[in-house]
């Protein structure tokens, strides 16, 4: 994304993901190495006091990374921070959104700070994110 095209307050296009599935969790867990059974083993989740396996928070953090790097470019990321609130569950339809909160100069680079959220279909916030990307120099 070029510096000329982005100003403070720029709203990223919303991404609505397909309904979450346990298959998504298993694929992410296999890729990341975090095999905590609470995200795929119903008996284990119930024994721990949950009605069912729930989403791996790091999967949604990763999809947020995908959402942001599709927009700004993979090599341009400098920081991504996430904080989880409500749990997400299989069947949830999550909506990814972001807004540019600041454009700033650091050394010779132009940086964009973005605040993002991932919300559930009931409006509950699953996670809040903060990211920083380098913007390409205007041509």
């Amino acid at each position: 994304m070029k510096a000329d095209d982005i100003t403070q307050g720029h709203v990223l296009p919303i991404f609505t993901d397909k309904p979450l599935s346990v298959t998504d969790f298993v694929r992410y867990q296999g890729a990341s190495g975090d095999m905590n059974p609470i995200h795929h083993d119903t008996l284990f989740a119930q024994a721990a006091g949950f009605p069912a396996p729930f989403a791996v928070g790091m999967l949604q953090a990763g999809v947020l990374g995908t959402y942001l790097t599709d927009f700004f470019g993979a090599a341009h990321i400098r920081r991504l921070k996430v904080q989880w609130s409500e749990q997400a569950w299989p069947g949830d339809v999550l909506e990814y959104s972001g807004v540019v909160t600041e454009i700033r100069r650091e050394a010779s680079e132009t940086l964009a700070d973005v605040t993002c959220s991932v919300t559930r279909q009931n409006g509950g916030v699953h996670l809040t994110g903060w990211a920083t990307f380098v913007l390409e120099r205007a041509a």
Partner: protein
Amino acid sequence: MDQSAEGREGTPFEMTIEAGKVREFARATKSTNPEYRQDDSVIPPTFLAAAAFWQTETSSPSRGIPINLERMLHGGQEFIFHGEPPRVGDHLTGHMRIGKIWEKQGRRGGMMQFHEIITEFKNAEGTLVAESRTTAIETSQAPEKAGA
């Protein structure tokens, strides 16, 4: 985990960024971006979570400290890149340590204990290129709504 554990370190571990692992991780995080399918791809933003595959028995700074997994939550996570993210072919050395440890009263009465796990990644030249900061929460009761 009590506060005396602050600053504890694990032993450094070696990690090589591999093209197939980058593709696999990109796909698992629902990316179809061709930038992650090159011979010299940069890593996806949260890829360093997969550093778990390169860690050994002594890499963790919390080894030997009893932790109740059913009461553990991942409260927050941050990845910082000092310049462009690492690329396929890069050889990194990771080094984990325990950061701050603190307690907070939960909304429904139980105590929540927080601790940070910080991993620094240096490249073959010894330059700090990336950091991962994990905030873990240990709850005193079932973590129904406290986090993910």
